[in-house]
């Protein structure tokens, strides 16, 4: 299911792997059958962080030149995370968006090519349980012997108080990140976990951006992305000479099946990472016959890829993008804008029939029946005024609650519920899925009981929204761009925008397309972009939030890569001089 439509198409043949990973001899007894479930607080990036990018070759465009598109999905905040910038040097011009403080264009284009990114979603951080000899933590058990721990003392200065000295223990695996002090006593955790994280290894990602900014062709791009080690990205590329390419790039550990999905024994070197996948074995696609490359955080390759692809990969946006690009021809930048802001919910299209088929309509009240009729007629589009979209989303969320909550509550463990794609897969595969039963009742429930219960649960919420005039999807979803200090007066609330989870237009409540970009690589570059913010971080400036309405309406600005000859152009409003 997760490999619904991978970045590198199914059936691609991969060369034999340079690294043959060995599964530890004790994996069955010490790992697979003994999954650790200690409750520890882990800080993870927002699980909604995702993105779309694609590039189509000249054979599919009206102009005959490639078009590259990218929209990274991040938290919607003010001041904006991105700002637009042009860098001009005697040898190159680059234009795009960047982060405050970054000395390069991060996503954008130059005079000969364009580049963008989506998250590769790969797992590059694993935890190992460390067995210390005693409370002094001075020795730990590793490969049948006591090994001395090294340590570093972090000196944390506190105003008006003595320094706080924090000792961090280091093992051969990595620093011991979690110990009994980690939660400050809030959790009764007496285990010790060392972390092996790729980001701790030396690398120079910034160099990738400076090299991309001046890249002239595919080979320059290839040299540039070698500097990307972590976090792994799907680096997309298109150039005026006609090349399109995508690399699932980074320096990723070569893992055996499910290595690191759970905490591993830290007493045995056979559980450590055995090497890094050579970068040229990373999944990639260059000038494919189908005429496009794309990624939307889905699996980079199917299971024939010789290494284990740990991580979590939402499948639906990628599926929809590929399906649509496959059909498109004579593509114009306007077509790409339409695709980038499209509200079709392919997950809804796959899941709605299950809800409709299993609903026990005779058990519904007249009002619930009325809502059920709206749900049945939903056109699978999360458009801003769609009531069906609200009904579907709330019903599916309720169904997840009805199916999972009883068992997960009973387990007493802090476990995440399976993803919606997993549930949909389970429903399609197992007619008598054991989780359908509500274990808190003596009856044995079926899927039909669950769907009906979920719908009743959902309509209770929806009735309230309906009474408040907030049943339309955009009003219910209530997308807003929030000031970092969470001040409503400095935020933009109640934006009229559709989309959401599993639609290409991934505008959620406070998360979504943080920069939409369409670059047509014609001899005179035709570039469009918009982001939900403004060029100024000052709430007293009219440039603070002036792009937001355009962004919400799904419109774009023509991007102007200034030339030296245009220095007297009337569009120039301000000039700064540094004397």
């Amino acid at each position, binding site marked *: 299911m997760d490999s619904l439509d991978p970045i590198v198409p199914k059936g691609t043949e991969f060369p034999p792997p340079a690294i043959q990973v060995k599964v530890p001899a004790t994996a069955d007894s010490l790992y697979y059958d003994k999954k650790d479930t200690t409750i520890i607080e882990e800080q993870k990036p927002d699980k909604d962080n995702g993105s779309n990018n694609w590039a189509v070759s000249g054979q599919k465009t009206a102009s005959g030149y490639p078009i590259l598109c990218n929209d990274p999905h991040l938290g919607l905040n003010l001041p904006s995370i991105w700002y637009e910038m042009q860098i001009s040097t005697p040898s190159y011009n680059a234009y795009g968006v960047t982060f405050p403080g970054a000395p390069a264009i991060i996503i954008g284009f130059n005079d000969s090519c364009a580049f963008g990114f989506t998250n590769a979603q790969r797992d590059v951080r694993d935890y190992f349980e460390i067995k210390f000899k005693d409370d002094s933590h001075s020795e730990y058990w590793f490969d049948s012997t006591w090994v001395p721990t090294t340590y570093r003392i972090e000196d944390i200065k506190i105003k008006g108080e003595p320094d706080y000295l924090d000792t961090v223990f280091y093992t051969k695996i990595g620093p011991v990140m979690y110990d009994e002090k980690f939660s400050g006593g809030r959790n009764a955790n007496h285990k010790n976990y060392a972390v092996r994280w790729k980001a701790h290894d030396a690398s120079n990602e910034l160099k990738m951006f400076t090299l991309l900014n001046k890249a002239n062709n595919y080979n320059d791009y290839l040299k540039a992305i070698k500097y990307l080690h972590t976090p792994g990205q799907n680096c997309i590329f298109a150039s005026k000479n006609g090349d399109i390419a995508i690399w699932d790039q980074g320096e990723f550990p070569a893992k055996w099946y499910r290595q690191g999905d759970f905490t591993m024994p830290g007493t045995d070197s056979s559980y450590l990472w055995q090497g890094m996948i050579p970068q040229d074995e990373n999944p990639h696609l260059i000038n494919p016959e189908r005429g496009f490359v794309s990624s939307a955080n889905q699996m980079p390759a199917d299971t024939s890829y010789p290494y284990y692809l740990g991580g979590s990969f939402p499948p639906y946006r990628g599926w929809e993008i590929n399906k649509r690009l496959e059909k498109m021809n004579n593509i114009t930048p306007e077509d790409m804008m339409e695709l980038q802001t499209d509200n079709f919910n392919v997950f809804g299209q796959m899941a709605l029939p299950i809800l409709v088929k299993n609903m026990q309509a005779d058990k519904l009240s007249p009002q619930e029946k009325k809502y059920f009729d709206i749900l049945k007629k939903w056109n699978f589009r999360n458009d801003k005024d769609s009531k069906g979209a609200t009904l579907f989303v709330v019903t599916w969320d309720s169904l997840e609650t009805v199916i999972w909550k009883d068992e997960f509550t009973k387990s007493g463990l802090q476990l995440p519920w399976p993803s919606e794609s997993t549930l949909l897969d389970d429903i399609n595969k197992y007619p008598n899925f054991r989780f359908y039963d509500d274990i808190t009742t003596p009856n044995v429930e079926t899927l039909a009981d669950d769907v009906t219960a979920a719908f009743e649960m959902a309509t209770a919420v929806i009735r309230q929204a309906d009474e408040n005039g907030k049943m339309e999807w955009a009003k219910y979803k209530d997308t807003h761009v929030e000031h970092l200090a969470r*001040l*409503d*007066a*400095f935020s933009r609330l109640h934006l009229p925008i559709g989309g959401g989870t599993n639609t290409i237009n991934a505008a959620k409540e406070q998360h979504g397309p943080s920069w939409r970009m369409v670059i047509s690589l014609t001899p005179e570059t035709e570039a469009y972009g918009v982001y939900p913010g403004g060029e100024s971080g000052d*709430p*007293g*400036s*009219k440039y*603070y939030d002036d792009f937001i309405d355009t962004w919400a309406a799904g419109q774009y600005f023509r991007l102007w890569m200034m030339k030296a000859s245009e220095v007297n152009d009337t569009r120039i409003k301000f000039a700064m001089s540094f004397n």
Partner: protein
Amino acid sequence: MKFIISAILIIMFSFFAGLYFPWWMVAVVAFLVSIIIQQRHFVSFICGFISVFLLWGFLSFWISFQNDHILAHRVSLLIFKTDSPFLLIFATALIGALVAGFAALTGSYVRKEKQ
């Protein structure tokens, strides 16, 4: 006449002091002017009050007007939960006016005590 001269002095010195010193210099100015030019206590208060009310009201209006009250719209929402730049300007003026008024009143009493 004393009233008008006092007011002009307070406005003028408060304005220039505001360019170089913290906001509470209006209190120092009103206090000193009120010591130098003797008026009845209540009149001193009114004099300080009105002077800085006018000065701060005009200044904040002028600053806010120059960027179409964008920041004042937002800050009035933030503080008063109402979108009203003029309420914010009024509140700004009122705060300055009260501070200067009471400072002038104090000055007036100090002068009286000395005599």
